């Protein structure tokens, strides 16, 4: 894993991507910091941190676009997957290298609150919690980018899809409010989910019985839970979408609330996407 990590980290700096990422990140954080804190003489640094989220939308796809797709395209994955390395080591090594670039960029911005502290009082604990939040959020988005990169051979496609997915995540709170919250809408939603799941089962196993069984199980679970507890279906759409709202969780951190719950939430997101990436890469070799 260490060999993979070092190779990836070096490749970020031999290609321009590492510099582009760090440069853009620092330039825009610098602008925000100057505008929000220096020019308006405000000590609330978390406001600056929070606006970094918008930068993520543009630079995380750049960071992760080639992470796996390039190996697939240039066939260097043949070297990796025929070496005694485990796939997990390869993927995690690559993820950690991307994370390291992000970590470096974020660590440099620690200068800003230090500058602020020379002019007045800052709320160190609040800023720390804001940093932890933004770090976890960034790490999660990088894991999503990693996953997207494993889906395609083309770096451009990878970047565009990643951008689209991140944009969706950013807009999820707005989308959530526009969705109907009635009981019927929720039931329709659940049924669509059951249908999608059954189709997925069918296409991945090509087994009509497995698909039928999963449909029946899905339907019976829906009906039983509806009969047992009708209220559970009120606003279900909002609950489900809200669960995917990575940004909403972040706002707690920026208010200085460090909740273990949210930390676990982000970490499980990261683990899930790394796991999915490993599955996708592994699956491609099996099909």
């Amino acid at each position: 894993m260490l060999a993979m990590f070092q190779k990836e980290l070096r490749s970020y700096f031999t290609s321009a991507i590492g510099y582009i990422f760090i440069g853009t990140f620092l330039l825009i954080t610098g602008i925000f910091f100057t505008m929000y804190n220096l020019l308006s003489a405000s000590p609330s640094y978390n406001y600056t941190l929070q606006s970094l989220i918008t930068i993520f939308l543009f630079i995380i796809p750049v960071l992760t676009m080639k992470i796996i797709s390039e190996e697939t395209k240039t066939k260097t994955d043949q070297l990796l997957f025929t070496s005694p390395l485990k796939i997990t080591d390869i993927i995690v090594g690559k993820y950690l290298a991307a994370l390291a670039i992000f970590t470096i960029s974020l660590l440099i911005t620690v200068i800003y609150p230090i500058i602020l502290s020379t002019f007045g009082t800052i709320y160190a604990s609040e800023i720390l919690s804001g940093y932890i939040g933004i770090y976890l959020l960034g790490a999660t988005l990088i894991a999503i980018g990693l996953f997207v990169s494993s889906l395609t051979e083309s770096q451009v496609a990878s970047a565009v899809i990643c951008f689209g997915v991140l944009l969706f995540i950013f807009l999820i709170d707005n989308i959530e409010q526009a969705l109907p919250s009635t009981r019927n809408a929720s039931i329709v939603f659940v049924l669509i989910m059951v249908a999608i799941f059954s189709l997925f089962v069918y296409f991945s196993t090509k087994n009509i019985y497995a698909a039928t069984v999963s449909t029946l199980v899905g339907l019976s679970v829906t009906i039983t839970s509806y009969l047992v507890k009708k209220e559970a279906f009120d606003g279900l759409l909002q609950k489900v979408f809200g669960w995917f709202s990575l940004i909403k969780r972040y706002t707690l951190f920026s208010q200085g609330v460090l909740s273990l719950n949210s930390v676990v939430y982000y970490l499980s997101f990261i683990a899930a996407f790394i796991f999915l990436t490993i599955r996708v890469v592994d699956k491609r070799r099996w099909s």
Partner: protein
Amino acid sequence: MIEIENITKRYGDQVALDNINFTVEKGEVLGFLGPNGAGKSTAMNIITGYISATDGNVRIDGIDILENPEAAKKKIGYLPEMPPLYLDMTVEEYIKFVHRIKKVKSNAIEPSMTRIMSLVKILDVRKRLIKNLSKGYKQRVGLAQALVGDPEVLILDEPTVGLDPKQIIEIRNLIQEVGKTHTIILSSHILSEVSAICHRVIIINKGQIVASGTPEELSKKVHNRNIVLLRVKGSKQEIYKTIREMEDVELVEEHGINEPGTVDIVVEAKKDIDIRETLFLSLSRAGFIILMMKGNDVDLEEIFLEVTKNDRGVQ
């Protein structure tokens, strides 16, 4: 050393490999021949564990590639069709990286790097970026990569493709050199190469093994003709007459005229009889000068065309 059992690979409805079986003994150099799209690369990708087979087993030195991939892959060096090179690394960095992912002990890396780089003659380009190297050098770096970690088995997918004739000879010699201590599977569509390097040849077409054996065995399988090619100075009719009078001659055929005043003749003798000596004696007694005589060549090209032409092939 390498056991391939009932390997089948399907992509949807398309069958890329159909029930392939063969074994390679320790120290053997096996040639893998086949037209484009026959399934050579697919077979090699399965043997190295890059992709999995739909059905069947691959064992390297008794270790199953799916059950214990790490241990099995340690024993394999693989040069794919397209050398897996990181173009923005220098040769040295790349070879070092390969050493590390192949889990060579860190104190053994330096001597091993020098040894391998001098073996494939890339020491002089060690500081250069791989993307700036010529195709021949890239191929050598690819070969160097396969040799890292001193694997017992080498799988080489078209190792001489894209090289100039001098480099081809160099790489070929290198493979022969390495073949003394390693078990090698080598794919190629250059027939002379396979007959020059390999102890045994497997011809594969449309995902099936259509012929296998030593180059000599194969040539016997395909045409049982006992042929001698001659170039004789003198008039055609008289030469023909002299040869026809000989015993054991089945057929005399013209083979064109390549030098003025001479004639090229194909003489087919009865089975299992070497007529070269008597041919020489009777022609010289009659006063004809033999300028060239060639025995029954191992002509893989012919075998190849023959077995890949009809789908049944020769078993």
